[in-house]
């Protein structure tokens, strides 16, 4: 049996708004799970139901071998970290971190030992005697993380803990969270809208939208084998390129044809004839004089180690990843080559069916 399980869990509010529409999820002990999706997708509600901060409307939640669906938060043995550092303003950093240990009734010696470990790992020694208001946002968030991980609960539940921080602090705290989690092997559920954070932290990513789980998989599965167009566009920066059109079979070849007699592309994998959406990631489209697709440059977006080249092509608008040294101007005409083995075919579902 898995360590944490959600079975047909639902959340409907009094006004009829349905935030979570019956989801199933199985998490193994020690796994790092990221719930990823846009605002309003139900990820935070899901986390809050696991924590016990939000009652479920239906379904069963099990944690560490027992059902916790109706238990209050304090009896679930979880450590929470929120986006906004919830520190006690009247306590020094030292006492803020030790607080959950004192509540748990640990001995003075034990508290001291645990505090020392976390302080050393997180490099907090210089902050111990300060009050929260004397700390920067990044440091406050570090302290609230420290307070959560000083305990070793059954699970850590983290709600966008890095959301409000500067980019560089986000990266270093991210590494710290991951290192600590790997060391303690505490099952962690982490909520974010940032796909990069999800890719770098997760053992498995749960992609959510509109109260439903769209895909559960390792970062590689979610990125390379997206189940649908939503996942393909949400994961990856930029998201996957899509082109609508039709697949025709000509002899033993499958040919994709863009609308209005537009460009043709031979597909490397067999696909059922009919309307489809083609997907390809930006790194598999190349500017190549011998390419079969024509296009005009709209925007050349330099981002440091590479460029995002936005092109209006015969297939439709797309983004490709170009070398940082290759500069383009708006209006430049280019030929494009698509790596056929990296083209994903999404069959267009007829309207009215799910």
């Amino acid at each position, binding site marked *: 049996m898995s360590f944490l399980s959600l079975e047909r869990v639902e959340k409907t509010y009094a006004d009829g708004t349905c935030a979570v529409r019956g989801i199933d999820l199985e998490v193994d002990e020690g796994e790092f799970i990221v719930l990823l999706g*846009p*605002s*309003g997708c139900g990820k935070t509600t899901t986390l809050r139901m696991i924590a016990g901060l939000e009652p479920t409307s239906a379904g069963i939640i099990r944690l560490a071998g027992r059902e916790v669906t109706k238990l209050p938060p304090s009896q679930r043995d979880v450590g929470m970290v929120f986006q906004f550092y919830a520190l006690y303003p009247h306590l020094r950093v030292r006492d803020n971190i030790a607080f959950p240990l004192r509540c748990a009734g640990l001995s003075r010696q034990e508290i001291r030992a645990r505090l020392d470990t976390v302080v050393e790992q997180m490099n907090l020694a210089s902050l111990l005697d300060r009050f929260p208001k004397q700390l*920067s*946002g*990044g440091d406050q968030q570090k302290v609230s993380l420290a307070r959560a991980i000083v305990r070793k609960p059954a699970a850590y539940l983290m709600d966008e803990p890095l959301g409000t921080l*500067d*980019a*560089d602090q986000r*990266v270093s705290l991210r590494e710290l969270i991951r290192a600590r989690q790997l060391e303690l092997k505490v099952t962690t559920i982490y909520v974010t*809208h*940032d*796909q*990069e954070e999800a*890719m*770098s932290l997760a053992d498995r990513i749960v992609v959510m939208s509109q109260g439903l789980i769209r895909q559960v998989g390792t*970062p*590689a599965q979610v*990125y*390379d084998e997206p189940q649908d167009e939503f996942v393909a566009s*949400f*994961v*990856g*920066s*930029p*998201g996957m390129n899509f082109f609508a059109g039709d697949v025709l079979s000509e002899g033993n070849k499958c040919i994709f044809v863009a609308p209005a007699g537009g460009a043709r592309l031979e597909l490397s994998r067999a696909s059922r004839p009919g309307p489809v959406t083609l997907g390809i*990631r*930006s*790194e598999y489209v190349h500017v190549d004089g011998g390419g079969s697709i024509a296009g005009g440059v*709209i*925007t050349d*977006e*330099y*981002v*440091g*180690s590479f460029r*995002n080249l*936005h092109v209006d092509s015969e297939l439709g608008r797309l983004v490709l*990843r170009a070398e*940082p040294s290759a500069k383009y101007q*708006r209006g430049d005409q280019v030929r494009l080559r698509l790596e056929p083995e990296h083209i994903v075919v999404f069959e267009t579902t007829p309207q009215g069916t799910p």
Partner: protein
Amino acid sequence: MNAAQKPAFLGVRGVCKRFGTTEALCDVDLHVGADELVVVLGPTGAGKTTLLRSIAGLEKPDRGSIEMAGENVTALEPAARDVALVFQNFSLYPRWSVRKNLEFPLRAPGRNLPADEVERRVQWAAKLLKIERYLERPASRLSGGEMQRVAIGRAIVRRPRLFLMDEPLTNLDAKLRESLRIELLELRRSLGIPMLLVTHDQTEALSMADRIVVLAAGRVLQSGPPQQIYDQPASPTVALQLGQPPINLLRVQRGGDLWLASDGTPVTRAAPGSADRAVLGIRPEHVAPNGGGQEGVVRVVEYMGATTTLLVRWAGSEIHIVTRGRSAVRPFDVLRPHVDAARVVVFPPSS
């Protein structure tokens, strides 16, 4: 092509601002050309917002001057400067419709725009920002991205002389930021109004700016085109502001024609006539996992989709390496990292 050759629209000269004992701005110089988008990049507390507020007239500099179109505006009231300021927190009237929010700045006393001109400008802004469909909707019923579009719309209907944007995308979802970034770029091209945007987000700065001004602790550390700042940062502090994962910094000393790390590992070739000691800045994408001499052990492998990030214990330090696509490397594998000598940035040893 060269905005710098045209006369600058905005000139900030030697501006200082102090709050109590904190020096928020210290001798800040910057200019924005008539068709330039300049991005001020810096961490929280660098003085970015104070700078914007000083330019808008909401803050009075202790010293220095601010010029617009050749005129000294340092003593002018905010309204007289004719600039538009877009904040991080979309400040809309929640109960009003989008249309009413957009009309508001045009109906300000003293503007006296005829009704058909007001309507024309609202339609123009709505079309540009793709919010035509929401015109009659109350602002409170919009999503974050839609609200920020309306906030930008409210700034552009006035056709100000200068746009000032304070972290306009920061409060939005990562995915939304990505698309609004492009929209802002395209909007800006069709407007032809100079823009100054401040942000702590390096991707925003790199992708949007004609020129980046790096600000830290109230001082300008470097300014230049994005690629110049990324490739030739003036100091390790600037180098660390750009690039993710961050640039690798290694303390080295000369050993013949090589740079040697603290543990004696040859890092890369040293140019003839180099100093004895230095700090090397090496971008993670300029290190190949193999092809070098000294061994390193892989600690962490992160597959990011288009790239894989490796954290490798090497040269008495831990370095990030970024490779393309999916790497077959696993934790505890042994590599021989090879640094692309041509791309290394050499900083003085004191830095």
